[in-house]
């Protein structure tokens, strides 16, 4: 009995000492600890992602030859169609470059694309943040936009050696400017992630919609990036306006909800567009003041 009491007392003392040390420790030590923990669990995340890939591989391998042949035939057709499109886009690209040179138009920000597999979702903020299996070693930097095809997935918020954390479009930490489909005057609107409970549907808010804006009939209006903020390339799809727009009491502007265009819950692979040149926002994110 006495030994148990002593043991309990010792554990309380140890806990108190640890808490006191943690509180008194300099921020650099705490940051190191956090980084160390992330790096410690990184192999586990890699293993998890790879085992999921392996499961998918075996699931596909179990398909019949007929099924695979049919899928291969379909894929060949899609490839042929895409080849034609690529040629067409190449012509347009050349014409675009020529016109930019003639008009001395600013060259848009250039990006290096890093393709990364999704390792896991951050359990501390379910649906709002994912972890990918590429990090600082692969050239990823904080603040870089993350896309899948021509749709925006989110933005890199933290970069570790071999993993990176991505704030999804629906995360409260995500903010960008956008154009609305059907707005001929291209007013910029604000897209902001909305904090939602873990079982709710994740959405973002679209605000500062001009009061005279009306959605195109018969289809949900797409929301595009503007490319003006120096982070996201222009004309990427952020999502669709949810149902309708709602006037705010303040007047003059309307609000709506944004439904992300990709199924954020089933993402397997994303591309990180790492800008070739560092922008001011990235410099601020790397500064001590935001740690």
């Amino acid at each position, binding site marked *: 009995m006495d030994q148990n009491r002593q043991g309990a007392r010792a554990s309380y003392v140890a806990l108190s000492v640890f808490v006191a040390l943690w509180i008194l420790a300099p921020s650099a030590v705490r940051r190191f600890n956090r980084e160390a923990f992330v790096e410690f669990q990184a192999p586990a995340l890699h293993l998890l992602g790879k085992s999921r890939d392996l499961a998918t591989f075996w699931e596909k391998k179990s398909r019949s030859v007929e099924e695979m042949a049919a899928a291969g035939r379909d894929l060949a057709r899609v490839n042929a169609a895409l080849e034609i499109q690529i040629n067409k886009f190449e012509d347009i690209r050349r014409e675009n470059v020529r016109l930019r040179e003639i008009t001395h138009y600013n060259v848009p920000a250039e990006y290096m694309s890093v393709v990364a597999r999704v390792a896991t979702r951050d359990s501390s903020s379910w649906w709002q943040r994912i972890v990918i299996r590429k990090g600082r070693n692969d050239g990823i930097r904080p*603040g870089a936009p993350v896309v899948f095809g021509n749709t925006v997935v989110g933005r890199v918020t933290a970069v570790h050696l071999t993993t990176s954390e991505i704030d999804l479009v629906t995360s*409260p*930490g*995500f*903010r*960008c*400017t956008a154009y609305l489909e059907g707005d001929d005057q291209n007013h*910029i609107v*604000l897209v902001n992630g909305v904090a939602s409970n873990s079982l709710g549907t994740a959405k973002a808010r679209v*605000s*500062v919609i001009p009061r005279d804006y009306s959605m195109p009939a018969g289809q949900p209006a797409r929301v595009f990036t*503007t490319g*003006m*903020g*120096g*982070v*996201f390339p222009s004309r990427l799809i952020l999502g669709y306006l949810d149902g309708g727009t709602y006037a*705010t*009491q*303040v*007047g*003059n*502007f309307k609000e709506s909800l944004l439904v992300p265009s990709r199924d954020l819950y089933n993402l397997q692979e994303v591309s990180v567009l790492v800008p070739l*040149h*560092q*922008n*001011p*926002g*990235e*410099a*601020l*994110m*790397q*500064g001590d*003041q*935001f740690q």
Partner: protein
Amino acid sequence: MKESSDTRVLPSTPVDRLRLYGVFFFFFAGFLYVIGGLVYRQLIQSNDLKEQSDTQSRRVVLRPPARGRIYDRNGFPLVDNRARWSVKADLASLQKEFRAEYLRLLAAEKAREAVSIDREKLMEDARVRVLQGWLNKVWFVIDETNRNTKGRKSVAKLTPVTAPAERQINIDELRKHLRERRALPFTLVNDLAFPGTGQALTADDGTKSVARFIEQFPVEGPIRLDQDNIRTYPYGAMAAHVLGYVKDTDMLPDNVDDISEVRIESMQKLRYTGKTGAAGVELSYNNILSGRSGWELWTKTSSGYNQTRLKFSEPEQGGNVMLSIDYRIQQATESALGKLKDPQGNLLPAAAVMIDVHSGEILSLASQPSFDPNRLADRVSSKYYDEIEKTGGWLNRTTQGLYPPGSTFKVITATAGMRKKVVDWDDVLDCGPFFRVGNRDYPEHEPVGYGEVNLDKMLAVSCNVWNYQIGLRTGIEALAAESRRFGLDVPLLQTVSDMETGGQPMTELPFAASRGLVVPDRAYKLRIGAGAWNDGDTANLSIGQGYLLTTPLHMACVAASIARGETRTVPSIIHSQERTGRHIGSVPIGLNADQLEALRGGMVRCVEEGTARVARIPGLPYAGKTGTSEYFKKGEKAHLAWMIGYAPADNPVVAFAVLVEGQTDTNTWGGKTAGPVAKEMLETWWPIAVKANQDENPKAPR
């Protein structure tokens, strides 16, 4: 034995018992006092104490609403609101940074062994340094020249030492903010789209600055993006005198009576800076346009910062106002006035107005020079204010400018003469090159005179001698009475209801009243100490000169009244389908059909072949009367060019008046100078009216 001695009870004496009762009583009384106090505090004083607690620990923050819009008669917005993005620092969140910076500064002071340390000054320096650091970061992000920042991590190094004012924390503003609005966030950049001195950083209306901040500046932290509305006037200076402008106000309306369960009367209230009307419609209809303030109920910290928002209510936008102005005619009117320049290329001061003959609604009302209300909507630069002051741009010459009406007054002289039966429509008078009154010759503007002149010809050529004769025959009393009958002594700035109840002028037309109107008579001349009235004064008055002073709007109303065969027109700046032309005080003009026909015919002839022939419009016969009156400009004689009229001649719909202030070195004449302005106004109005008529009556002839 031992046990029994422990339990033994000693007999108490009466003295002990008394002492014990005393102690009991003392404790009982104390207990009662405590309980009583609790009951008193909890049951009786609870409401007062709760209110006191709320007063001390809570505050209400009032937020300004967006103002309502102002439309033209067709629903085009003349005044709107645009989004203003501002960057604000949450001072409560910056407390730790302030404290840390303060301690650093204090340590530095102690290290250099300062004799006395001003701790308040140190705290202020700490605040300024911290906020300056954040402001640097904001500019670092929004300035597009910072494209490639690789290897440059220190933001402070990127900020020039000699930064312009907008890139530096204004210490006076910070002091004022801490003194009066400590709980509210401090504004670092007032308008992100125009963060410089009212200029966008980039060529695309500043949108890029906003976009760069939104996408690059960290979402978390003490710096936040605030979005509110700012007044915008899409057509710039167009109709500026009608629309007016807004100014800052710290006195938001206290209309927050719906904060349920919270008594706010004695609670501290903080108000964001809002906007209130300063002139024009913005001022006159401020109560409609203002809207309803929003509110937030906050708990506050002991340092006076906001802590937790308990409740809030969004502000409600103000109501809209629809003006009678047609922006197309207004644009044409101002464009025509803009062509009037002196030899040095400066704009000539001028005014023009067009009104609906039947309803009295004003279709265009312009005054030159003017100002751009957009530049007054936020922070007014003293330079721009002085510029307007210097050019005389504040004055609305259409409603506030007081001028002798010159020969346009001859329609009233003729009406007075015919009503007094001293002349008839077909009487012919001999009109030489001058007319002698007393011992002075009053000249004709045609050196050889006009010979035989009847009413029709008089109006066409604007014969002076005809009017001298008729004016003298009519007499000053009748002339003055006729002028008053046409309302030349009545400020037109009153609502119909004001007029019906005999209330004070104002509001229907949102301008400072033209209180200096003068319809002279014998009493007036004596009152101003200019001696007794004489025939020369009557001769002068008969041609609209002398002491008579009126506004262009009054003369447009005179033209509208003649077009309707009445005496009064009540103008309105508000568009209403229900307005049926209730021209309070108006009576029939008092001329027989032939007389009225001759009066109108003379005005038509004036345009067709008379002094206004330069303003003739093929296919649109209309009535007009020109005038050229004299006035003194800086001690030298100069001319005022006038033209009034109505159109079309046979079925009047609109009436107008144009006035141009000539300079001493300009050749200014009624028909030649004011005529083209009237012509351009009517040429713009006519197709609009024809199309509107076609839309209403598709079978009407084109």
